[in-house]
């Protein structure tokens, strides 16, 4: 090993908490990756804590400081300070890489005592080879240093079907990460995605976005409620495509209210919303508790009508026809096929971005619910007929995930499609990509099912603890590491990576800029 590259030496500790002395003149950081050369293999280790070490007793150091501070004329120094005072780094082994075949294993032994360590280099990470159908998430990061040559690619089908969690607080680069992931999903038709874009930030209506991908015209479909840009679709969903179960876990209906809804659906099939809204409930009937509408109390009907009216913007026109003034929901003939079209696109491995920025919370989740239900059903059917293997894996990207898979939602209301997918979607190649600031409110059973977590910076201790507790690798010593993650820095913990990988996600704008523009094929013939 080149003496100049040495940054420290193993001096003590135990498995998972090895102590090294930092070489004078080097500047180790939390998160730095280093290498310990072993016989036939090398260990990759990571710094998780830094502290001072000294050969001089604490009291003596404090006295010397007193001399310096209080008797300003005298400047007391240590004799050979580099030998006497130093930094101790606490490091943990992440992986053992075998030189012969490039195998990466979980380490089960300590680095050799007194072994000299160096910082990791690109050649040490040659096992990170991109294979077919993988998605790029970023470059390996050692502390704050980015190793540009070491790209991290994840196996798309496995990762998306086993769910992805992206926990982060605002301003830590969530959108940039999601755009980066989707950008690489657009490269092939191996992954279909439904993206509920609550901030209309992925398509790139005003700046760069997924629309700038060379294959966007073929592989991406964008729906927006009004004034769609050229080539985009209008997001219109016909009321006839809504079924009672789509409200489950989304809207707070009581049991009798749900029964009233189900009864209306049984009686009037696809026209159930219009018919239910037509039921005349007078205030007088409200007062007389014994008077009932069908089998339901007038009060129940009124509440159901009011909730539907608010969520779906329903009004009654002068001819007593129920119409929806909602930007998205339509009571006439429009949008009958939107859900089918979207599901078909996802089944073809396309990325479908829905601009839900102008929808209320419940309306957004309802739209997602309608589509996700149909998608899951289609994939279940495909499994039954043996066709699932030919389908691309499908993922549903949802922001503020606790709205649908939060503990309070799932205990106070019935399961919804998102929690169903989180629990059983994997069997049918349908997964969630859940983005959240609050991982701690997602039930452990669901968090444990999310087998890939791309952890961005988070200053909330409670959230970090929830993430660490459910990580696929042992992150028990990484609390400070996570807290100190800067914008665009992340840690990937997944059953599909050999160790928890520190990464730096590139700027999406740079990815777009670096992508070679397609060669202009010249004039187009028009007949």
């Amino acid at each position, binding site marked *: 090993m080149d003496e100049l590259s040495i940054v420290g030496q193993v001096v003590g500790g135990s498995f998972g908490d090895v102590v090294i002395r930092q070489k004078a003149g080097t500047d180790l950081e939390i998160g730095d990756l280093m290498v310990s050369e072993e016989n036939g293999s090398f260990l990759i280790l990571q710094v998780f804590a830094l502290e001072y070490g000294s050969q001089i007793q604490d009291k003596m150091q404090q006295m010397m400081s007193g001399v310096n501070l209080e008797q300003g004329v005298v400047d007391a120094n240590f004799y050979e300070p580099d030998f006497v005072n130093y930094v101790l780094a606490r490091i943990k082994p992440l992986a053992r890489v075998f030189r012969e075949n490039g195998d990466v294993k979980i380490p089960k032994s300590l680095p050799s005592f007194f072994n000299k360590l160096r910082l990791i280099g690109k050649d040490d990470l040659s096992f990170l080879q991109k294979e077919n159908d993988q998605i790029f998430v970023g470059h390996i990061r050692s502390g704050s240093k980015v190793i540009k040559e070491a790209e991290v690619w994840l196996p798309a089908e496995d990762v998306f079907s086993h769910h992805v969690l992206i926990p982060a607080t605002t301003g830590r680069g969530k959108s940039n990460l999601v755009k980066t992931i989707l950008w690489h999903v657009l490269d092939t038709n191996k992954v279909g995605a439904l993206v509920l874009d609550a901030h209309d930030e992925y398509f790139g209506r005003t700046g760069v976005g997924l629309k700038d991908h060379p294959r966007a*015209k073929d592989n991406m479909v964008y729906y927006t409620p*009004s*004034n*769609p*840009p*050229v*080539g*985009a*679709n*209008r997001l*219109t969903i016909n009321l006839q495509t809504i079924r009672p179960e789509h409200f489950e876990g989304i809207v707070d209906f009581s049991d009798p209210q749900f029964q009233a809804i189900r009864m209306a659906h049984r009686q009037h099939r696809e026209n159930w919303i219009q018919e239910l809204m037509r039921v005349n409930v007078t205030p007088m009937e409200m007062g007389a508790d014994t008077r009932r509408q069908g089998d339901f109390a007038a009060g129940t009907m009124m509440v159901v009508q009011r909730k539907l009216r608010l969520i779906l913007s329903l009004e009654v026109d002068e001819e007593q026809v129920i119409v929806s003034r909602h930007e998205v929901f339509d009571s006439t*003939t*429009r949008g*009958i*096929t939107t859900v*089918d*079209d979207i599901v*078909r696109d996802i089944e073809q491995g396309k990325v479908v971005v829905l601009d839900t920025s102008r929808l209320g919370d419940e309306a957004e989740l309802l739209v997602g619910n309608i589509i996700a239900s149909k998608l899951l059903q289609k994939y279940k059917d495909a499994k039954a*007929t*043996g*066709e699932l293997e030919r389908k691309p894996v499908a993922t549903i990207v949802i922001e503020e995930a606790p709205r649908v898979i939060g503990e309070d939602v799932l205990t106070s209301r019935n399961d919804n499609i998102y929690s169903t997918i989180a629990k059983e979607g994997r069997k049918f190649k349908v997964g969630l990509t859940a983005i959240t600031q609050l991982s701690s409110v997602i039930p452990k059973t669901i968090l444990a099912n999310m087998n890939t977590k791309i952890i961005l910076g988070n200053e909330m201790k409670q959230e970090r603890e929830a993430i660490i507790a459910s990580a696929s690798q042992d992150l028990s010593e990484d609390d400070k590491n996570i807290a100190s993650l800067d914008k665009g820095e992340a840690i990937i913990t997944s059953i599909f990576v050999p160790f928890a990988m520190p990464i730096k996600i590139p700027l999406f704008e740079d990815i777009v800029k670096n992508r070679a523009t397609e060669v*202009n*094929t*010249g*004039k*187009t*013939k*028009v*007949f």
Partner: protein
Amino acid sequence: MLFAHLSDIHLGFQKNESLQKIEQQVFEKAMDECISRNVNFILIPGDLFHVNIPEMRVQKYAFAKFRQVHDAGIPIYVVYGSHDFSPVSNSVIDLLSEVGYITKVTKATSNENDTISLDFLIDEKTGAKIAGLSGLKVGKDREWYEKLDRDSLEAESGFKIFLFHGGISDMKTESGMDGDHMPLSLLPKGFSYYAGGHMHKFNHQSFDGYPNVVYPGTPFAGYHADLEDNANGQKRGFVLVEFEDTVKSVDFVEIPNVSYEIIQVDANNRKAESINQELIEKTKDIDPAQKVVIIKVKGELTSGKTADVDISGIRDELNSRNAMMINVSKNGLTSKEYSITEAKGANKEEIETNVFSENIGQLRFEYPELLNDDGIKLAKKLLRELGQPVLVNEKKNEYIPRIRDNALALLGLDKDDS
């Protein structure tokens, strides 16, 4: 001022002689209506003919009628549809255009920067400005719209009409309307009227920036499914549009075509015998004379073959009662007993063997050579034989008998065996 908008006439589609007459009559009636209502011009955005060069019979009556319209001083503006389009101007549309009976609207220029500019054609009498693009099969025309210089089109003032031939996804009204549809946002904004073709049912909608997007639908039938829709009450005809500076009214003019009867049978969880019985019962109740009779059997039989649902006797019976035409649809009919199970394999050969092995057990034949391993071997031989390509310079009338005779030989049959 008034113009007519027709589309998807599909002249030459019908194979049945009686329906060919109806097809002709409907077309002629529509043109006569245009003349008698004194329209200023007629728009036909595509699929005027079912193929680019239809048979002479069709061309004869089409030319005669178009000459009549021309003589009445009514211009006809068209774009190619996905059926009558020709990349080398080798369509009967071009012939009609050459003699001056119709005018092709598309005046496109491909620019160096890979954009497409469209020029307006101005109708002399009304001053209406008309632009349009043809429709290609499987949505290949989408590229044109993506490259369209829409700024110049949108900046043009006056009464503007855009002709296009293609499905608009925003206007789909039924599930199951698969195929290539494009979003409305690909059309240039701000035209007074969007004359659409390709969707076969009348549909008139307005959107922000897109007032009056209209499909008149086919006036009779361009697909077999259209006849079924007709039997279910779909109105057919064309659209009359009154306009000045803007569109004043859009009215659908119905043209009756023929009478229909439809017999629909749900085959789900039933056996062929009971379906045959129901068909007989339902047939008794109708008067098929001079009518198109649609028989539709759909669902999954519990046992037996789909071929056990026997329409031939019913067909004979209806014919004897002067039915004009009997259209049978069994596409949606399957059988539990004969559903094909998929099988895996390392290569094509292995997959074929495994699929046959997996499914041959379902068959009940008296001939042992059609069952078990012998049956699998025979099936594979037959599949290979039927997959033989056409030889170089081999004509169709040589290829078909060669393949048929070889296949029959494999089965140990003679082509004269009935």
